[in-house]
C-alpha cells in the first residue's frame, strides 16, 4: 500500500505570518489520525501543507519518500485525496455528476469518461449510502446528505490517503457520528490512511487511532487518545479547565468542561487515567506533555 505521508521541519506561512513552525510528524499508515487544537493553532494549515496546497517556507512534506511539492500534481491526486472545509457546489448538477468530478486525476486529454469511472462513482456512492440520491440535484439535499456526497466525491478519487478538514462542521450530532462512522468503515475495510481535523475533542478521542494535539503551530502531544487527552493537556492546549473521565460507551477519554458557573465534585476525577484500556492499535506512544511527570 502506497501511503506513507510525513513532514520534516515543516514551516508554513501566509505572507509573513508563520502558522506552522518547524513541525515534524509522520502520519501512521492505515490508521485514523485526528488533529485537534484551539482555533488558529495551525491545524487546518498543516492539513493544507500535507495536501501540497501550501508550499512550505522551509522543510519538506514527503509522500512515499518523495517531496510532494516536486511530484506531478495529478500523480499526487491519485494517491492523496482532500476534502476542504468549504467546498463549493456548482448550481444545478446531479449528485452523480458532482461525484464524477472526483475522477479528474484519472482522466487526461485523451482518456475520457469510461466504465471504470462509472464503477468508481457507483462504489463511492454506495460506500456513503448515497446511491439512491444519484439523480438528485445537489441543492435539494440536506446538510448531512450533502456532506456524505462530498465524501463520496473524495472517495471516487480512489486514493490510499484521505485528508478531511473539519468534515463534521455544520452537522448535527447524529450526522457528525454518521460521517465519522463512515470514515471509520472506509479505514477498516479498505485500509485507507485517514487524517481528520476535528473540533470536538470527545469525538476525536473516540474515533482516533492516533491523536495529535496542536498548539501555536507545533505539536503539543501525540499518541493514543488515552495517553494524550488528560486534564493537563486540555488546560495547556485549549486553556480550558475540564474533568477527563472514561467515555461510558467506548472507554476513551471524555472531556467534561467545568466553566465559570460550576465547580467539580472533589475526589472522583483526581486520577483520570483510571479505567482506560490501552489502545491496541498504537504501539508508539510519544509523550510531549510537560505535565506528564505529575500524574
Amino acid at each position, binding site marked *: 500500500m502506497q501511503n506513507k505521508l510525513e513532514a520534516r521541519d515543516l514551516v508554513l506561512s501566509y505572507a509573513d505570518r508563520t502558522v506552522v513552525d518547524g513541525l515534524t510528524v509522520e502520519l501512521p499508515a492505515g490508521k485514523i489520525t485526528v488533529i485537534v487544537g484551539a482555533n488558529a493553532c495551525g491545524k487546518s494549515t498543516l492539513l493544507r501543507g500535507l495536501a501540497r496546497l501550501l508550499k512550505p517556507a522551509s522543510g519538506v512534506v514527503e509522500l512515499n519518500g518523495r517531496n510532494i511539492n516536486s511530484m506531478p500534481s495529478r500523480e499526487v491526486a491519485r494517491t492523496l485525496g482532500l476534502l476542504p472545509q468549504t467546498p463549493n457546489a456548482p448550481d444545478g448538477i446531479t449528485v452523480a455528476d458532482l461525484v464524477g468530478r472526483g475522477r479528474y486525476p484519472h482522466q487526461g486529454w485523451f482518456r475520457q469518461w469510461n466504465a471504470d469511472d462509472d464503477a468508481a462513482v457507483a462504489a463511492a456512492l454506495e*460506500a456513503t449510502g448515497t446511491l439512491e440520491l444519484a439523480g438528485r440535484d445537489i441543492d435539494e439535499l440536506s446538510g448531512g446528505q450533502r456532506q456524505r456526497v462530498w465524501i463520496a466525491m473524495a472517495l471516487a478519487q480512489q486514493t490510499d490517503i484521505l485528508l478531511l478538514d473539519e468534515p463534521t462542521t455544520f452537522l448535527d450530532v447524529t450526522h457528525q457520528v454518521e460521517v465519522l462512522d463512515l470514515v471509520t468503515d472506509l479505514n477498516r475495510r479498505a485500509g485507507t490512511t485517514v487524517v481528520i481535523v476535528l473540533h470536538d475533542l470527545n469525538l476525536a478521542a473516540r474515533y482516533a487511532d492516533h491523536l495529535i494535539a496542536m498548539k501555536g503551530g507545533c505539536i503539543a502531544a501525540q499518541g493514543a487518545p488515552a495517553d494524550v487527552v488528560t486534564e493537563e493537556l486540555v488546560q495547556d492546549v485549549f486553556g480550558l479547565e475540564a474533568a477527563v473521565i472514561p467515555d461510558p460507551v467506548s472507554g476513551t477519554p471524555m472531556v467534561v468542561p467545568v466553566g465559570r458557573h460550576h465547580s467539580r465534585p472533589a475526589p472522583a476525577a483526581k486520577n483520570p487515567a483510571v479505567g482506560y484500556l490501552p489502545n491496541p492499535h498504537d504501539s508508539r506512544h510519544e509523550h510531549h506533555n510537560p505535565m506528564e511527570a505529575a500524574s
Partner: protein
Amino acid sequence: MSAAPLMQENRPAAAAVRDVRRRSGRRRRAVLAALAAAVVVLFFAGVLLGSYTVTIPDFVRILAGERIPGASFIVMESKLPRAVTAVLIGAAFGISGHLFQTMLRNPLASPDIIGISYGASAAAVTAMVVFGATGAGVSLAALAGACVIAVSLHLLSRRGGASGARLVLMGIGFAAVLQAVVNFLLTRTDVRTAAESLVWLTGSLNSASWERAGIVAAALVVLIPAAVLLGRRLRVLELGDDFAAGLGLPVEGTRAGLLFTGVALAAVATAAAGPVAFVAFLAGPISRQLIGGRASLAAAALTGALILLAADFVAGNLLPGALPVGVVTGALGAPFLLWLLVSSNRVGRGG
C-alpha cells in the same frame, strides 16, 4: 450501506450511475438541439425576410452562383454576412460570459459588467474622437483597450487572492472610470462624431461584411477549441480552489488561460460590432435556466447567437427606423431572463 462491502465492483450500481449520467445528458442535448434549431430559423428569417424579401428558391439559386439582379447583391453583400456576423459574435459573447461567470462563480462577472467592454469602448471612442479613426482602426483600438483592462484586473486581483466578488467590484470600479472617460470625450467632440461614436457604443451590425466576418471566424477557430478544452478544467475549478488543487489541477495557470480566452472572445466580438449590450451578461443565465440550472458552454454560445439574431431581426423588421442591434438586446434579453427567473420556482438558481 453497512452490509455492502466497501468500494467493491457493483454492476447494477454502476449501471444506475450511467443511467443518471445519460438522463441528464439527454435533457442537455434536447435543449441544445432546440436552441440550434431556433438559431437556424432566425438566421434564415433574417436573411430572407425584411424590406427586401427573397424567396427560398431564389435564395438557393443565389447560393448556387446564379445572378438575380438586386437580390444577389442584397443577399450576398448585406444580409448573409450580417447574419453570419450576428451568429459569430453572439456565440463569442455567450462563451466569454459563460467562462467568466462560471470561473468567478458570480453571475455578475460577465465581461460587459466587469469593465472589459468598457475598456474596449473607451479606447475605441478615444480613437474615433481624438485620432479620427474609422473601421479597422477603431476595432484595433477596442481590442487593445479590452486587453489592457484584462491585464490590469489580473495583476490587481492576484494580490490578495482572486475571489469572484473582489474581481467583480474591481471591474465595476474600472467601468466607472472608463465610463467617465467616454462621457468626457463625447461631450467635447462635435455632434456628428459623437453620434457615430454612440452607434458604435450601442453595438451595431450595420458595418458587417464578409471581410469582418472572416476575421471573427478565424479568431473563433482558435478560441473556441481553447474554450472547450479549458471548459473541462472549469468543471473542476468551480468546486473551489482548494478542491481543484487537491484534484491535481494547476489552478493559477487554468485561471490565467480562462481569463485570456474569455477576454479574447469578448474583445474580438466587440472589435467587430461594438460592445453589444448585455449579450455576454444574459446568455449564461438564460441558457442555465433553459437547461435546468447547470452551466453549459455550448448552450451559452447558442443562446448568445440567438439573442443577437432575434434582436437584429426585431430592430430591422419590427421597429421603425434602422435601430442599432444593441438597443434591442438588453430590452429583449433582460425581460426574458426575468421571466425565466420568476417562472422557475426553485431557489438558488440565479445563474
